[in-house]
């Protein structure tokens, strides 16, 4: 049973444990399916720092070469750098080798389009169909290409960031930053970027060796070393990345995590102060986004959970900023991708612009308390739960876009089935912690009552 669960093939890619389920045979086949899906042409391949990355890379090269594609090896680089490079050069797509925030024994393939976007549901379905049908393109020897190297992904990404942010302004603020890259792909990009912005940088965990000194997910409990370092170095801010540098957590000068949802809140404030326009985020992200947007007369559009959904809506609505509450900030002027370094730039320039400390800026933003919980529940019991929740709790508003979300003037509750596990996720947010906790408790009680 354990073995079955450690391999996940879904629309977000193929993910598994190296030495167990994520075998080179499986990886080669998946790369062959992707090469078949895209047809001949250059396909960029980048990876995070995981020690299994080299083996996974070779398996991917074999599958792509056999299908007649030209793999372009970007080496170790952040996922956003891969996405930006894919859109910038003439490519037919890209593969990111990273299990993102999963622990070190995991790895994964994530599939990216020629536009540098993760495959959407329809595209991913087609890829999976090809994989399952197992009839991959195999070109004759004369059409087999070679692996080409390209070292421009990170420099190109940084250049683009530096064009977007005001490095002189940030530099004049002489901000001191402690950076924790989790020895991940961010190690090769973030220190350089922050120094180019004129920051004084204290680096911890920036050796890109794939030996994660902490769980790579940048949640408060995983950031104790960074939190202490921020206080000890009297820094203005602390930044934590996950292994592939798409997500960002921010630590205030007192060593407190501001909460991953507030990473996006700060970025939203920064962008909207410069350019008014629509904001897109998912249903579970903090209401602070709505408050910020409202104060600047901008609309907020909520989508289903998942980066692809957010990005799709951003493009459609012409959003000026977007992202998700897990620390994934999307600045479309840079690229439609979650980019921890874009998030860093936004926070730093906001501080420089306002000539204020991070806590002072956060004071301007309404504070909500968020309580998150997940409970085991078989998928067939989810919709009875949602129906009775809807009946029981008299809400001022609701939406069923993704599970059930109920609104009150002071609070909201979002209950939905997870995309990846047989659990329901409960997120309550309110002006008071007590109210948020009460909403979660009520939901849990209902689940207990509904149990057979």
């Amino acid at each position: 049973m354990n073995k079955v669960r450690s391999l996940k093939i879904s629309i977000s890619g193929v993910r598994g444990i190296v030495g167990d389920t994520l075998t080179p045979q499986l990886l080669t086949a998946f790369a062959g399916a992707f090469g078949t899906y895209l047809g001949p042409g250059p396909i960029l391949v980048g990876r995070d720092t995981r020690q299994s990355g080299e083996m996974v890379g070779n398996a991917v090269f074999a599958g792509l070469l056999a299908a007649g594609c030209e793999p372009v090896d970007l080496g170790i680089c952040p996922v956003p750098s891969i996405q930006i490079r894919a859109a910038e050069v003439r490519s037919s797509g890209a593969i990111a080798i990273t299990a993102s925030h999963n622990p070190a024994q995991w790895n994964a393939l994530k599939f990216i389009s020629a536009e540098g976007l993760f495959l959407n549901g329809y595209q991913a379905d087609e890829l999976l169909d090809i994989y399952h049908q197992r009839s991959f393109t195999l070109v004759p020897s004369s059409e087999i290409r070679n692996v080409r190297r390209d070292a421009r992904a990170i420099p190109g990404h940084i250049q683009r960031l530096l064009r977007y942010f005001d490095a002189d302004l940030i530099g004049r603020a002489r901000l001191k930053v402690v950076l924790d890259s989790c020895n991940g792909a961010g190690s090769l990009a973030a220190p350089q970027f922050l120094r180019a912005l004129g920051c004084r940088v204290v680096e911890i965990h920036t050796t890109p060796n794939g030996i994660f000194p902490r769980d790579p997910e940048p949640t408060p409990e995983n950031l104790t070393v960074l939190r202490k370092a921020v206080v000890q170095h009297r820094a203005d801010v602390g930044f934590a990345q996950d292994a592939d540098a798409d997500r960002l957590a921010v630590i205030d000068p007192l060593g407190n995590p501001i909460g991953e949802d507030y990473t996006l809140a700060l970025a939203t404030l920064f962008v909207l102060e410069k350019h008014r326009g629509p904001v897109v985020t998912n249903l579970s992200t903090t209401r602070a986004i709505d408050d910020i947007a409202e104060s600047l007369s901008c609309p907020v559009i909520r989508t289903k959970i998942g980066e692809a959904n957010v990005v799709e809506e951003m493009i459609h609505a012409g959003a000026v900023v977007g992202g998700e509450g897990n620390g994934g900030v999307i600045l479309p002027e840079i690229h439609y991708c979650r980019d921890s370094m874009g998030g860093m730039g936004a926070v730093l320039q906001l501080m420089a612009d306002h000539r204020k400390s991070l806590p002072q800026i956060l004071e301007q933003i309404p504070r909500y308390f968020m309580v998150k919980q997940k409970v085991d529940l078989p998928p067939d019991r989810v919709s009875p739960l949602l129906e009775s929740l809807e009946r029981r709790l008299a809400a001022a508003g609701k939406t069923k876009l993704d599970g059930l979300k109920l609104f009150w003037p002071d609070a909201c509750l979002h209950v939905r089935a997870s995309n990846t596990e047989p659990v329901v996720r409960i997120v309550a947010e309110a002006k008071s912690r007590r109210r948020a906790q009460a909403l979660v408790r009520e939901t849990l009680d209902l689940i207990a009552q509904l149990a057979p």
Partner: protein
Amino acid sequence: MRPLKIGISWVRGVVGETLTPELLVDFACAFGTFVDGASVAVGHDSRRSSPMVHAAALAGLQSCGCSVVDLGLAPTPLVQFAIRSSRLAGGISITASHNDAKWNALKFIGKEGMLLNSYQSQEVMDIYHLGEFRKNPWNSLGKVQGMADMSERYFDYLLARLDVASIRKARFKIVSDCCAGAGAGLIPAFLERLGCKVIRLNDEPDGEFPHPPEPNVRNMKGAASVVKSVEADLGISVNADADRLGFVAEGGNALSEEYVFPIVADYLLDSTRGPVVSTLSTSRMVESAAARHRRKVIYARIGEGYVVERVLGEKAAVGGEGSGGVVVPKWNRWFDAFSTAGIVLQCMARTGATLGELAHRFPRYYLLKGALPSSSERTYPVLEAFRKRYHENSPNLEDGVRVDWPDAWLHVRASNTEPLVRIIVEAEAETRARDLYDQSIDQIARVQAGRGNE
């Protein structure tokens, strides 16, 4: 007919058809499991498909925990030397040797740089069929590291064993044709270190073979005409992975590849003890070399793996095949165009004989080789027909059917590398050779048409 062949020490197939990346990863995993995750060497020839095969082999080996000394583009003998000199557990050479460009293969090499013998190969196949491969966890996967100076180290090794002073003094002018294979650049570099002046043909290892990568008379025409026009002392032509070679004599006379082994044997037997190991399909010329030195000739099955194993088992002075592959066991455990070229140059330098003169020391035989396509179900009836037909002559049945007469011999066998039946005939008289050969072709055609012995 599926163009995938699994033989002693290798798996060979057509890229784009049967030699899929998944199959290659599986075989690399089987080999990595066979060596228990120990360190290995990998190199590849210049074929267009080699990068794909190479990536698949690395992924499979790494997943088994095998750290890889990656030689990149390298002739098979260099991979074998790296294994032996670095005391590695084995390795894989990615090359379909003399097969044409659409083929590729994994050649499995064991300890000491020797191709796997039949028992070891069987074990690899058993692991492959079981499908239970080593799976090392993420933190003990194999690492890949390059090794740049391996060719210089190999040249040093060989130069320390050759009479370099004599060869340099002779100042040979040599035309080299590496057929755009893995030997490109390296064969000329080796010859230059021996003080030769080298005219390089097809010396860009881009895998665009200008002629089939087999050093036989037909494929050496280009080299032969250059030898003639530049008045070179000789020409050297190697196959795609530079384990075998052929010679062009002075004046542009391309010698049959059958001459390589007897010339080397004749010279080495002057100074080396032990019998000679040949194969059932090799010219009798080597027998006259052995007879001159009163040595026994022992017959091994065809294939480097069999020949080298037998050479070591019999403590032979030299072993080889009529295809231009020669093993000199006091130096190497493999067929090698580099040492073979070096020995022949040393022989010429010391004796003052030209290549043509060396060739003329052997009795003149007429040798005809051919091959006819034959699917696996047709091959047995063909061989059976020959066995019956020559029953009276007590044929040797070790590998196909070999029939001996005082003035001639005939060998019919299934190819190890392709879906073919191979016929080889040698006789003192040209007409006799031609008759035997034509009769054999007719015989095969009759069996394949379902008419048997008529």
